[in-house]
């Protein structure tokens, strides 16, 4: 099934839509691309798999002219090209939906869809709103989306915005007569299952007239929607897999060079929870988007909260960290009543929070790994009121090691790290103090590769074993079921049911979905 990384003989096959040979890209301290080869055939969906930091995004950015490679060639339909800008790429029929959503929030959906390629919607610099609406509607119709093209983008749901992005990228058809190549960098990491289904239906439809490059860390997804998968490791292409009949495990082996265990969630590592007194206990907590929440989490217990969009579970989490105001109810930690007017109070109470939006809320991009890691816990790195540089360096290096964070140095700005490694730094932030009692994890594995996920899960298990209580808003139902000792289902701001989820007695996802909607 898997074949070596050598290029296939191209003579017999039709000329590929896109071909990359020996692409190299250096960043200070990192070789992001180290001679990557890639072939995208016409009318196929090519998956791209690899660990965090393997170089996927860098490769794809090179394909749309955002990254100038240091060496190597790119061929579009057999013709060597230099891609200098997004427009350049679009003129060659290559378009991309970025890993981070990239829409202008204060413009209408229509404007976003047509941004940079307004065509007839703008005549001599003057907008023709009716044309714009029509053109945007056409794009939305292509993917069967029902949103109002004149709605402001920031009023749309995340999934709708994703649809807008896809509608937008399809505009490149207008620029090139050839079948386009459409690149989707982790489009599913923020979508719900139903939305993912719709997206996959779109991707399959796109194949009729385009080639698609698809990136996801969920290998089952990759195998599901792609015809073929290319695996990247440390900036090199290490292999290719035809998806028919392939299993995630094999893919994983290629990605990391060794086999991972089947026990993704380290369920066998789950310890017993003895609860004489709950670590966290909330009663009748109400806020603007949730009412009457009762929740107990024992030390060493992992409680997952599941629910659909707008179920209010995220606001509960944020309320527990002192960011969301509450109107009623009480919160107790280890039996002691506490109030949480701000995040400081929460930290002082031994609560930690890993937000879902890593880029804007989780980390401070331009600051170093070390600073990001030590932003919260001062005692661990200070002597008296002063920072002790040696102590801090030792501490940070220890955690870089312990979590295998891939970074050139502790002084590298965190924004230069790949997503997964960034997430590990954010997690480490709460652990270095050694005094964490309750962790609120909002989608902690979003955008993480299998290996990194597995590490995060193992870490959660270890923390639980050490008596940390965890509230988990999981990335998927499987994750919730796999990790949690107990699952709360929230719907419309209320807890509708509670499902025990002990080792060996796990419920099925279907049971939960019933309650969620």
């Amino acid at each position: 099934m898997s074949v070596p990384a050598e290029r296939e003989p191209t003579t017999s096959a039709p000329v590929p839509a896109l071909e990359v040979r020996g692409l190299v890209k250096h960043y200070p301290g990192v070789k992001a691309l180290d001679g990557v080869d890639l072939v995208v055939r016409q009318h196929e969906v090519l998956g791209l798999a690899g660990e965090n930091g393997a170089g996927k995004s860098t490769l794809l950015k090179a394909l749309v002219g955002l990254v100038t490679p240091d060496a190597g060639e790119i061929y579009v339909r057999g013709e060597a090209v230099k891609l200098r800008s997004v427009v350049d790429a679009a003129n060659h029929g290559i378009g991309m939906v970025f890993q981070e959503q990239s829409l202008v929030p204060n413009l209408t959906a229509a404007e976003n869809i047509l941004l940079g390629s307004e065509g007839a919607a703008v005549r001599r610099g003057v907008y023709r709103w009716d044309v714009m609406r029509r053109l945007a509607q056409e794009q939305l119709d292509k993917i069967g989306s029902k949103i109002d093209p004149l709605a402001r983008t920031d009023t749309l749901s995340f999934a709708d915005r994703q649809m807008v992005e896809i509608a937008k990228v399809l505009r490149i058809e207008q620029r090139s007569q050839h079948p386009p190549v459409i690149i989707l960098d982790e489009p599913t990491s923020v979508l719900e299952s139903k939305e993912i289904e719709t997206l996959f239906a779109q991707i399959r439809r796109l194949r009729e007239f385009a080639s698609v490059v698809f990136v996801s860390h969920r290998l089952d997804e990759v195998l599901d929607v792609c015809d073929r998968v290319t695996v990247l490791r440390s900036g090199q292409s290490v292999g290719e897999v035809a998806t028919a009949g392939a299993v995630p495990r094999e893919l994983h082996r290629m990605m990391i060079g060794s086999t991972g265990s089947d026990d993704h969630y380290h369920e066998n590592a789950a310890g017993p929870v003895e609860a004489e007194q709950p670590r966290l206990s909330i009663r009748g907590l109400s806020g603007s988007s949730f009412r009457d929440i009762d929740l107990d989490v024992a030390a060493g217990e992992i409680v997952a909260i599941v629910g659909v969009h707008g179920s209010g579970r995220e606001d509960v989490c944020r309320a527990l960290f002192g960011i969301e105001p509450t109107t009623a109810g009480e919160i107790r930690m280890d039996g002691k009543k506490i109030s949480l007017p701000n995040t400081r109070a929460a930290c002082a109470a031994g609560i930690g929070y890993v937000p879902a939006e890593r880029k804007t809320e989780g980390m401070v991009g331009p600051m170093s790994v070390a600073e990001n890691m030590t932003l919260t816990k001062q005692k661990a790195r200070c002597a008296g009121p002063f920072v002790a540089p040696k102590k801090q360096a030792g501490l940070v290096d220890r955690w870089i090691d312990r979590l295998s964070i891939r970074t050139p140095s502790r002084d590298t700005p965190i924004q230069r790290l790949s997503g997964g490694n960034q997430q590990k730094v954010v997690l480490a932030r709460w652990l270095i103090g050694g005094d964490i009692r309750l962790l609120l994890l909002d989608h902690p594995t979003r955008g993480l590769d299998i290996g990194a996920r597995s590490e995060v899960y193992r870490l959660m298990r270890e923390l639980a074993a050490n008596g940390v209580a965890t509230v988990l808003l999981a990335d998927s139902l499987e994750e919730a079921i796999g990790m949690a000792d107990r699952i709360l289902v929230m719907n419309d701001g209320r807890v509708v049911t509670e499902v025990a989820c002990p080792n060996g007695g796990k419920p099925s996802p279907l049971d939960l979905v019933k309650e969620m909607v």
Partner: protein
Amino acid sequence: MTVESGAAVPRRNSRRGTAFRDAGPPVALVVIFSVFAVLSPQFRSIDNVQNIVDAAAVLAVVTCGITFVLMMGSIDLSAAGVMGASALTVSLLVANNRNDNDFGLVGIAAAVVLGCAFGCLSGLALVLLKVPSFMATLGVSAIGLGVATLMFAGVQPNISDAMLKSWAIERFLGLSYLTWIAAACILLGWLVQRYTRLGRYAFAIGGAEEVLTLSGVKVKPYKVAVFTLAGAFYGLGGVMVTSQLGAGLVQAGNGYDFSAITAAVVGGTLLTGGRGGILHSAVGVVLVMVLTNGLVQVGVSPYWQGGVEGLIVVAAVAAAVIPQRRRNQVVK
């Protein structure tokens, strides 16, 4: 398979919220106007209302310009210098007591074009030298004042151009021509903001500049164009001041930079960009003028006027942001 995307849900961004948010400044305007109207009979006289609107004309035009810049998330402190230069230019080009020029409308156009040139300079410094607009425009303002001083050359140019003088004096429907010019500018600004690529892109640059780049839009020319447009408004503002004062003053634009920013912000434009617009700013301008005029009318001591005005501006902005307060909101 997966469940939901937590923080991705737009937080309280409903359309109703938008309308509510925009309502703050007009409500504040009505409240402040009513308070003064109750306190002072002269204040509510038709004459005085005319006076307020007339007095708002120049500020309105300058604010039109600054609004586009603020919408992009940049800032513009060049109004004072640009207005001084354009005031001197126009007063030396139309009929005046310093030379024999009598170019009339052409002279006015030249002053506006000069404003454009200065604006363009700010924009170029921003995009080519990558100097933050705060500093670039401060520098351009100094250059403008220098150029104005050079043209002034020690003797005040007084204008005798009948048309330019009439702008401040003649009235149509009870309002001076200058006021109508300001109204036309607001309309023009609104059309540009709503119906042109320049306006919409300015708005978008304030919302998410990097996205425009990713979409293959070259933002630099638009930034320069926005500053140029703003410069045109300041140039016109300088001409209007000259018409009002009957003379070209180097100090023609004194204080307009900060007043215009205040007016725009009071009207609901965010300094971080991406929100607000010409109509918001127009409300802000009227609010500021009502305040200035009202404090004189009700007889607040001249010593205190500035202070009271500052206090009310802060209070008005505070009141306007209360509905949008969130704990983790970023306020710079």
